[in-house]
């Protein structure tokens, strides 16, 4: 059972307090987009065997959505940050690169 720190209320929350929301930083495509763009947005998800950026909600806590950078293999957590961003913060990326020099970046 994972522990993630909610960046809003600062609590280290057990997974039972959280609900998962899939891949983070998706760009929404609406009316006017091509079929490829739309199906890519709606269905195609990264499934890296390394660092994954994902959405979590502190559902049984403060109710806020936040994002986490987590290794899908070792479950190492490189950081959590507010959901109101389109890109991972530089500090998170630096933390990943410091520990994983050969990380190829977000797929």
């Amino acid at each position: 059972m994972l522990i993630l720190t909610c960046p809003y209320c600062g609590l280290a929350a057990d997974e039972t307090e959280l609900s998962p929301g899939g891949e983070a930083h998706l760009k929404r495509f609406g009316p006017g987009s091509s079929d490829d763009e739309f199906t890519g947005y709606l269905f195609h998800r990264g499934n890296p065997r390394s660092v994954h950026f994902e959405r979590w909600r502190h559902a049984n806590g403060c109710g806020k959505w936040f994002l986490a950078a987590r290794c899908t293999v070792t479950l190492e957590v490189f950081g959590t940050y507010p959901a109101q961003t389109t890109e991972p913060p530089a500090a998170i990326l630096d933390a990943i690169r410091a520990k994983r020099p050969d990380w190829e970046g977000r797929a």
Partner: protein
Amino acid sequence: MSTRLARGGRRIDRSKRVEFTFNGKRLTGYQGDTLASALLANDQMLVGRSFKYHRPRGVVASGPEEPNALVALGDGARMEPNQRVTTTELFDGLSARSQNHWPSLEFDIGGLNNHVARFLPAGFYYKTFIHPRPFWKHVFEPVIRQSAGLGPAPKDRDPDTYEQVYAFADLVVIGGGVAGLHAARVAGAAGLRVLVLEQTAHWGGRSPVDGGTIDGQPVQDWIDATLQVLEGMENVTLRTRCMAAGIYDHGYMIGYERLTDHAPAPGMPRHRLWKIRAAQVLSATGAIERGLSFPGNDLPGVMLAGALRDYVVEYGVSAGDRTVVVTNNDDGYRTALALKEAGLVVPAVLDARPEATGALPEAARAQGIRVETGRAIVKVMGGKRVTGIGVGLQAGEGSILEEIACDAVAMSGGWSPVVHFWSHTGGKLVWDEAQALFRPDPARAPVGADGLPNQAVGGAANGALTLGAVMTDSHNAISEVLRRLGKSVSDPAPAGDAPAEAPLHPVWVMPQGAGSKLKSKMWLDYQNDVKVSDVQLAAREGYESVEHTKRYTTLGMATDQGKLSNINGLAVLSDALGAPIPQVGTTTFRPPFTPISMGAIAGEARGDIFQPLRRTPMHAWHEAHGAYFEPVGHWRRPYCYPQGGESHAQAVHREVTATRTSLGLLDASTLGKIVVKGPDAGRFLDMLYTNMMSTLPVGRCRYGLMCSENGFLMDDGVVARIDEDTWLCHTTTGGADRVHAHMEDWLQCEWWDWKVYTANLTEHYAQVAIVGPNARKLLEKLGGMDVSKEALGFMDWADGTLAGIPARVFRISFSGELSYEVAVPASRGLEFWEACHAAGADFGATAYGTEALHVMRAEKGFIMIGDETDGTVIPQDLGLGWAISKKKADYLGKRAQERVHMTDPTRWQLVGLETLDPNERLPDGAYAKASGTNANGQGNTQGRVTSSYMSPTLGRAIAMGLVLNGPSRMGEVLEFPTVDGRVLSARIVDPVFYDKAGEKQNV
């Protein structure tokens, strides 16, 4: 025969006799016995039958690795199958029965399988039951089901109670042997919060049996002294009978404590499940002895050497008078010495190694025990137990050089570290060639949330098999853990002293040159009857992966999960594949370490407190008035209110008729009520609903549809505009929490710059639907506000006071009748509800339930989320195009609804269905037949029933359904086959069955 010796037995108290039964036979043992030692003391060597061939099975081990001796423990509702006798402590009145035999343990018909074993090879099920196809359903499956499974499942509700606790620790030490105790003492002295879990009732592990000294003290003295120190440390918690079951993500652990299994105490919890967060975990879990694969090694009387020694030393029980020891290592000699010291006969030690010159073999020779090197067991004589063995050359093919009469065989194939917990969270193993064992690879340790190692392993679990090595290794391991936690170690490593041991010689098949006939008698997995020949067959048939071989042969898939058989099996596989053992690897170790009770997993969450129940403010009234409840989400809603012996159908009929002809009252409090407020609230709701909500005037209501981003209808409800920047969104009962979360998701993660605030007020208000031709009269009688057609038209709402209670009145209808939904503060809900009934008595006010609600909405052709929708239905399928804005540039689901499949004209469309026989109701979910068959040879379909009821209003069966080109096929008749083999005919009609013009609600 096996028997109780006149003396010895460290664990037992000979002054306290304990009575128990086995297969109804009354037997006695002593306080401190396990069921295994007590059975052996009563010469009950035969305790069960194997799974596949029903071969006789006896006790083989003395701990949790026991694969054979599984019994059904207890009687009636307390009966529990597949309990290992080796981990069951004896108590007065214990009742055990053997399993997997018919008609009796001694004489078993299923044992016939044994004689056709040649025809039941590995993968037998996969190969045999394919053709002819109908035979699977009618012959093979029933027969297999009859013979599958070991013990029977209990049939009654478990009368015992269970509990769960949470614990947090800097360090959890798994295993209370000498390695674990030392680690705990060092960590405790360093001030850490330590939790020590020991699965047995005793501290110290098997060291006291094996002997030696620690820091010059006999092992047991050292254990006693160390325990005394630990018990004085407030920061150290010691638990016996508490098994670590598994380690999970980020240091989460499960412990399984058996509180009263050893001494049943009514009123006390039986098991306690520990939910533990550990910063660090140290496995001091020891090692499990391996058997040797010689022909006939599964006969009762063939046991692990260490186990035989345990029974003699711990319980004063001998498995036989004459025990031959067969070994490939020095440790096996300890058993020969222990037996000799107990006054028993050891006719020979057969050592597979070319020579044996270590301290232990020399000690055996000095005791006059005959030691033969380079020797193997090539045959075991006996039926239901050993009567003798044939000796041959380990290097040979199996010729018998000599026969030795004996009634027990002690076998030792070396020891395998218990690496389970290291492996649970991804720690990797390394093959130790010199000791022929897998041990944890410190370079590839499991890691915690910070990416740093959070586990260590010390002692025999780490491959340190002699006492000296165990203590040094334990010290190194705890030193490393303390370093990780920023503490330092002051104590020196304790010095363990025991005789030096020469290296073992890996022996995977005995004798080495055995042919196929002998190999088909060499058991690897005793419980599932997997033999050396099966694994070799799997390899020949192309199974190269150890995981595939496991599933094909069922090696290691029994309740013991291969604790005895895995290493021997994969060594045989590796030999057959010509690949080195580390390359073949192990199967995955998964929690739990040994099976844990379902009761412990459930804990207190059973019966009435299995899940929280949501009750409306009027719940007690419903109960008092005979409501039959149905679950809707976590709510309980009245389905109907049967009166005076009515059936449910009769009650629903009465409720519908009363409502349509006069006045019905529905507790609608469970409907979701979400306030959406802010300068951007209108814009936000325009994105959320398919229709336009921003243009809704203050004081008005509008029915809205909500779709997911992939276009499918997810919820519906009436939205009311409260003021310039406030809307109140009603949702379905089950959808309130989900819709609120959906709103928050989009607000927080996509449109976070929009100024909108949402609040779920569902439980703040009680809501009552007042429905029927006399609805207005009732409100007028309650008094306090103008509810006339002019003041409060259809789809208007107004705030006011009714019967002195602050009320918000929505003039909306889900029944087609004149109808008001009145929301009052939850605290006054019951008062208002009772006021409605009191004032409505003149009109025959009738409480109605969810089924009447459903019937009335269906009579009107209104859809119900979850009936007409199933996650694949879009509003356009339901004739709800009128509720989809054509003007809006965007809403959630709009782009998806433009996809090719969504605009396909052959999507099934909503229609009404009338059975030709009006008394015949279509079954929910029934399919309409079409001509031809699909690629699987199944009949084609052209529609299905989504809702179906008997309509009291129309006096006939009505249904709604989705049908291919339905709206353009009015009047056509479709055929619906039923599960009982009939075919019902129904005509396609308009889905609005009642008051098509909508005049009744608009008065």
